[in-house]
């Protein structure tokens, strides 16, 4: 039989504390100010002109926002994943295009290099990304290989002290602006997923070319283009991890990067709610501000509740990614990142649709920010693992 409960000493000093540290509060404030003062001006023009925000990239680097997760000895900010997602949320609130530019550099370029690169490679590449104002890209997807990344066909062949790459990558964020690309290619045609390896390709490598930029529904101020490898030669030391580990590295990288996309969705969701509240207070119909109509109030309440849920999942996943899991927990961090990504992206899509609805006809006009956010948010359920892939990841963990 169970024993009587007694008040444990210092139970209140337990491990549940939702407050941010002073450093985190400070950084959030700093990034928010930077986003409002430096990124917000021109955000609509850049979207309309499909123009990459080159002018703010150098400043993002100076603020340490491009190598946030990189250790300080390699020029990074060395912050924890929670601080990182807080920063992405603040940038995405103002400009989702800039947020993905930053997220890709941090999560899918710096992170795998920092984790799987050898010392020479880390010293050569990371300081330039983390502190030099250079940005990075990640080449996994191909025209015939999206969710089924293991089927990719770009090849890498060892030739003396070099690797020689041939093939094509599609939908590559930051293509043409990035100085470094983490690229996954096939080193063993017979070995399926185990025949893939990951490499770091500098943008000035011989045989490397960037194709024509894509015209997209949203995120028009982020650059997306194909990469072409034609006997593209890179040093042997640019291999990440060991030969054959490419698929594992790609999945670990995506587990991590999902936090950035979840944070991006949370930032967009927050902005959609802010815009809806401001508009509903300002706009009058039937003689009262529409914020006084219960139908509008209930939409706002739902958006607020789902934002709280999305943010809590994202922060929890970020904390989990920094903590070693016990054996019983397995790869809990991977499951939680997938939960955060699928929930936050789908909730943000709902929030943008409802915010646009509250804006009525004005929301359909390009002069209102919500019309851009409505387009921008759409991709969050697709890239870095579709919602369907997230659900498969979660189910795989549950059924382990």
């Amino acid at each position, binding site marked *: *039989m*169970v*024993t*009587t*409960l*007694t*008040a*444990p000493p*210092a*139970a*209140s*000093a*337990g*491990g*549940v*504390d*939702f*407050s*941010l*540290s002073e450093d*985190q509060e400070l950084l959030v404030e700093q990034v928010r100010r930077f986003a409002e003062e430096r990124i917000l001006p021109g955000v609509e023009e850049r979207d309309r002109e499909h123009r990459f925000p080159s002018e703010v990239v150098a400043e993002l680097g100076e603020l340490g926002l491009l190598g946030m997760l990189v250790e300080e000895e390699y020029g990074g900010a060395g912050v924890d994943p*929670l601080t990182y997602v807080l920063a992405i949320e603040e940038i995405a609130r103002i400009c989702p295009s800039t947020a993905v530019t930053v997220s890709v550099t941090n999560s899918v370029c710096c992170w795998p290099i920092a984790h799987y690169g050898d010392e020479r490679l880390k010293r050569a590449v990371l300081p330039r990304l983390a502190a030099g104002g250079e940005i990075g890209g990640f080449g996994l997807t191909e025209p015939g290989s999206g969710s089924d990344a293991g089927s990719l066909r770009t090849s890498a062949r060892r030739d003396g002290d070099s690797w020689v790459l041939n093939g094509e990558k599609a939908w590559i964020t930051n293509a043409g602006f990035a100085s470094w690309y983490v690229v996954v290619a096939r080193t063993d045609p017979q070995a399926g997923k185990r025949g893939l390896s990951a490499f770091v390709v500098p943008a000035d490598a011989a045989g490397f070319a960037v194709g024509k930029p894509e015209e997209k529904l949203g995120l028009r101020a982020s650059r997306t283009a194909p990469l072409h490898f034609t006997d593209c030669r890179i040093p042997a030391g640019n291999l990440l991890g060991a030969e054959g580990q490419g698929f594992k590295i790609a999945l670990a990288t995506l587990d991590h990067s999902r936090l950035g996309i979840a944070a991006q969705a949370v930032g967009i969701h927050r902005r959609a*709610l802010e815009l809806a*509240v401001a508009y*509903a*207070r300002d706009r009058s119909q039937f003689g009262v501000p529409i*914020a006084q109509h*219960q139908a509008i*109030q*209930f939409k*706002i*309440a*739902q958006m*607020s*509740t*789902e934002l*709280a*849920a*999305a943010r*809590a*999942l994202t*922060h*929890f996943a970020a*904390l989990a990614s920094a*903590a070693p899991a016990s054996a019983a927990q397995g790869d809990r961090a991977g*499951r*939680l990142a997938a*939960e955060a990504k*699928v*929930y936050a992206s789908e909730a943000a899509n709902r929030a943008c649709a409802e915010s646009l609805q509250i804006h009525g006809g004005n929301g359909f006009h390009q002069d209102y920010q919500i019309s851009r956010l409505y387009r921008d948010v759409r991709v969050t359920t697709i890239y870095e693992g579709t919602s*369907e892939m*997230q*659900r*498969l990841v*979660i*189910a795989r963990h*549950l*059924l382990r």
Partner: protein
Amino acid sequence: MEIELSDEQKLLRETVRRFAEEVVQPRAKEIDETGEFPRAFFDQAGELGLTGVAMPEEYGGAGMDTLAYCLVIEEVSRVCATSGVILSVNNSLVCDPILKFGSEEQKREFLTPLASGKKLGCFALTEPGAGSDAAGLRSTARRDGDDYVLNGNKVFITNGTDADVALVFASVDLAQKHKGITAFLVPTDTPGYSHGMHEFKLGVNASGTTELAFEDMRVPARQRLGGDGEGFKIAMSTLDGGRIGIAAQALGIAQGAFEEALAYAQQREQFGKHLSDFQAIQFYLADMATEIDAARLLTWKAAWAKDGQKRFTLEAAHAKLFASEMAQRVTNKALQIHGGYGYTKEYNVERYFRDARITEIYEGTSEIQKMVIADWVINRA
């Protein structure tokens, strides 16, 4: 930020889970069917310290915090939602306001026996004509010397068939609307107090829900909780806290249903495969797990805010709204995964499905939560 249970909290959760599985679960189905109020369960819960989890030890409580309280309600509701709400009402809706608004004398006389489980409490606010619009209640309290004389009727009172103490809300001046509402601590053996029979309900069937009647019920002025006209404030503040308990209850119901669905999907075969091999079922399970995790985080966050003496009205409404609607979706999917078997009494999911429904209604409907949230977001942010 840190969101991991401490060793003490884990120990508490394990202890309560064992109690729930060994003592509560074996009777869950039976009391659901008969509607018999599980008084023995309440007494045992009292011995364990579950009847006044967040009450100070000097008043008979376990001296823990709101997060611990949430763990208790979740674990008990995971096997029996009826038992969960019985505890939730005693903890959140009766003990909590006495601790917060009661005099030292009232705490000694009423809180100590309630928090230690010697007595069972109920919360009497709702009336036939005053549900969400609690300020519209019609029960009256007329001052007469050192006493008040109460008259009126209450409905849907959880624990009502078996309570020893009722926290009763009545108006000292109906013309003053909510500013006339006043709270009283009333032993249920007070002359003029009566309660109805057990009412069969769709779910949480054994929680002793019934109506109360007060006929020239004389209550000494020293049993008034707070001052004249402070009752509405006490009720609203109490319900803020109560909502965290209901969120935890919804969470427990969903967790229980999810675990049964997960096990069933891995055991049941159709088309030569386990149900869990089908992508449609995998996606149900993924969504259920995701929403349960989100609800738990919102619930814990509200509990953390309450324990930090922060304003937690918004957090509690977020948690209650999300968790209750999540429980509805999760229990529905759990039943769907069970197919025809899920519709029978042979499996527990039909009970979870029925029990979840009330969490969207009591202690503030989803619509009331949305009104509260919208008010905060639109007018106070």
